[in-house]
């Protein structure tokens, strides 16, 4: 009844040998760099004139971490959604966000290599993976709404609605950034986020107008997540300074537009805007400053464990 597993170190070779045929020097076969070595290969990553490279890198990390962390939370839904179609939808949204995160992390690393954690000599881990897998929680710059643990299906619908409404408004403006890489990533992201926001908006309406149970769960999820909403629309000094140079977008400038969209969803769904205040930071520090909930540490522990156990990408 037992089949012995092939021994990769067998002197006669193993079934895996063929996988590497003709792939010498081809990093696409390694655990890290399973895609382009550099997702911005051939893209001009010169920092625009008059822009502080470190500030630009930090700003890119903020946008990247929002996408990366939420992407991971959405991928935790894989195989757990109410039906197959929603499972695929959530995985698709997670994949779009992961793609945005990857480009933005690579842009951060290209703008200021000092933000990339250093790894052992000879490590094949590309900069965007080093940023994703080898930073501690306090180095993450995401807003806290992206990181809190998942709840029920209503919770994920409300979270996608709130995050994608804000992110879409930001990226629409960011498509005009003086930084050509950010502009390109944003222009692409706009098309994706339009789908995400419509998806979440439709489910919000469906759950609100569904059964008593679905409505109470929806209202409960909105109530739970609402204190984290304001943080997305507050400007961190890095965001303000990048906005002044025509590279970034000040989130406070999209607040009205975002509110109008959410009001539209609330009105058609017959749901009142929650009457809860914003979750406070600690001494004024919030997610953008690296101040996070405990839940981010737990999430990162799982997300990063394999990469950290094998920093050289081979086993």
């Amino acid at each position, binding site marked *: 009844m037992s089949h012995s597993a092939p021994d990769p170190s067998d002197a006669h070779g193993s079934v895996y040998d063929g996988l590497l045929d003709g792939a010498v020097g081809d990093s696409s076969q390694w655990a890290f760099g399973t895609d382009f070595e550099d997702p911005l290969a051939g893209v001009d990553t010169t920092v625009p004139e008059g822009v502080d490279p470190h500030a630009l890198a930090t700003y890119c990390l903020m946008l990247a971490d929002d996408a990366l962390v939420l992407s991971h939370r959405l991928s935790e839904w894989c195989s757990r959604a109410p039906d197959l179609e929603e499972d695929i939808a959530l995985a698709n949204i997670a994949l779009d966000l992961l793609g945005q995160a990857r480009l933005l992390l690579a842009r951060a690393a290209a703008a200021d290599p000092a933000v990339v954690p250093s790894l052992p000599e000879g490590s094949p881990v590309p900069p965007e993976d080093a940023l994703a897998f080898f930073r501690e929680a306090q180095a993450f710059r995401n807003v806290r709404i992206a990181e809190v643990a998942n709840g029920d299906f209503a919770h994920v619908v409300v979270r996608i609605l709130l995050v994608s409404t804000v992110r879409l408004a930001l990226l629409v403006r960011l498509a005009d950034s003086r930084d050509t890489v950010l502009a390109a990533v944003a222009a692409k992201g706009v098309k994706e986020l339009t789908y995400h926001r*419509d998806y979440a908006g439709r489910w919000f309406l469906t759950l609100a107008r569904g059964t008593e149970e679905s409505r109470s769960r929806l209202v409960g999820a909105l109530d739970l997540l609402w204190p984290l909403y304001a943080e997305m629309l507050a400007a961190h000094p890095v965001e303000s300074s990048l906005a002044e140079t025509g590279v970034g977008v000040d989130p406070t400038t999209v607040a009205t537009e975002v509110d109008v969209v959410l009001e539209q969803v609330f009105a058609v769904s017959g749901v009142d805007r929650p009457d809860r205040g914003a979750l406070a930071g600690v001494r004024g520090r919030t997610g953008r400053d690296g101040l996070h909930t405990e839940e981010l540490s737990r999430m990162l522990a799982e997300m990063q464990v394999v990469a950290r156990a094998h920093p050289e990408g081979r086993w």
Partner: protein
Amino acid sequence: MVTATVSAYDVACTVTDPEMPMLTLADLGVLRSVEEQDGRVELAITPTYSGCPAMATMRDDLVHRLRDAGYDDVHVRVVLQPPWSSDWITQDGRRKLAEHDISPPGAAPRHDRPISLNLLPTRRDIACPRCDQAGVELTSEFGPTACKALYRCTACLEPFEHVKEI
């Protein structure tokens, strides 16, 4: 080197999409340019979606196919701007999709700013690629790959995929 440029281009044009192998990368509008100078071939490709997991396979397939054709110095770069649009799928590509029972995309939407919220199911004027009946229903806006939505024909009851308009 005009002859060689055409040749490298012709080779690149035979490479197919890993997820929709009835289409070449050129049909899909993912292959943006092929330039050849002094034996060095430089190709540009663009992702359909930001997280497109097939980019590495496309890169490898292009490099390997060109190497087999005698081009040793091959470089593939990514272009992000302008972002890929389903409008770039060629007429030939659309015909091939339909022949393989995948519904081709209509015209990509043009968004005003701010982009309006759409709480109703997306309306598309499409027919079942198998039986050509217009009666179809959307089962999901998200399909097995990032670029497709799922439909079902109300006449023959078969599910089918539709390439989304972006």
